[in-house]
């Protein structure tokens, strides 16, 4: 059994993915889950990915957005507000 990664490592990895593709791709919770699962393999599991997303949101590093579906993004000022 491989050693588990920590919630912090998972949420950092997610944050980097979101940040690196800002303006190019919008991430859904399921996309992030799949991507980190690919990255960490069986060192990661569903409870960890769930906790990591919650960590991102509750620390204000990311927010949920809605554009025809729900996404997780870095907070920014949106077009419609202008």
């Amino acid at each position, binding site marked *: 059994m491989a050693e588990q990664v920590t919630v912090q490592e998972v949420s950092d990895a997610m944050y980097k993915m979101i940040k690196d593709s800002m*303006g*190019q*791709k*919008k991430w859904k919770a399921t996309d992030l889950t799949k991507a980190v699962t690919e990255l960490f393999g069986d060192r990661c599991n569903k409870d960890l990915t769930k906790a990591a997303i919650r960590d991102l949101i509750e620390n*204000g590093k990311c927010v949920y957005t809605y*554009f*025809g579906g729900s996404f997780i993004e870095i*907070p920014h000022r949106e*077009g*419609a507000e*202008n």
Partner: protein
Amino acid sequence: MPEVQPKQKRKTDIGPPHYEKFLPPIIKENYGKWKYHEVLKPGVMVTVSETGARLYTVRAGSPRLLSIDKIRAYADLADKYCNGYLRFTSRHNVEFLLTDESKIDPLIRALDALGHPVGGMANSISSIVHTQGWVHCHSSATDASGVVKAVMDDLILYFTEMKLPAKLRIALACCLNMCGAVHCSDIAILGIHRRPPKVNRDRLKATCEIPSVVSACPTAAVRPVTVDGQPSVEVIEERCMFCANCFTVCPAMPINDPLNDGVSIWVGGKVSNARSEPMFSKLAIPFIPNNPPRWPEVVEAVRNLVEVWARNARKYERMGEWINRIGWPRFFEMTGIPFEKVHIDDFKHAGTTFKRSTHLTY
């Protein structure tokens, strides 16, 4: 975003209050023990328990959009006539739950004085389930509340009386997203856009992310392009089904078009399993232009459908059951609605909607 004050612990995920807190004692005592019900007169029903207890329901129509002043007025009525217990229905009506039969008529008078008619039960037209329209939604092809008000002003006697062959359910949605239960209604009023979005290149650059706009389109009608060296998008018009998803993502792609937006009318849907299986509504009138503030052409069209059905349907026959009995050719003939090319489906499984037999009337 304002920081959370540390002094107050923020509560989350508590869910709604438990419904038991709001049930009147007679319901708590007779929960699951009801024996039968009887509609006593329009908008008034008694539900009788095996213990003999009698619960009276008085149902009144509402515009759904309510000010807090009106909700407080409801609360006052509930205090005065039924110990403060009331509920709302899936069709936006308000219901007062009484145990004292002698208070029914005074309550009805008080509701009338407040401007809220009592009715909408049994073989009547209940309130119109509807969406936000110009009051609150960006993608609406018509207003919701205004059309509903005009139609109900015209049909109010069908709400306050029970003279129809069966129930008649009307619903309205202001665009194809259909946020209200329309597609399975006896009569559905549906707002439609008929032109693709227009791309405002300068605003697009300033306010929108191109990959998001492209991926928002369900039919892949939005394509990235480069115009004068600047990244932008174009819309392949033949592919667009006017759903406004691109506009949701990007305010620089307005789809609303005063000249071409309007209303379509669909008929013969039902959700209940009674007698026949649930059915979708089918297209009756493809397009009526918006004519605010009172949409007289829509009001007229709905009245015509209601009256032709009411005159010809058998007892218990919902709109769709009546049409299935007489056939669509007779429906178009009796209602005087012209049958056009757009009535024939041309989407994926269109073939199943063609007449595949010689069962015809002449």
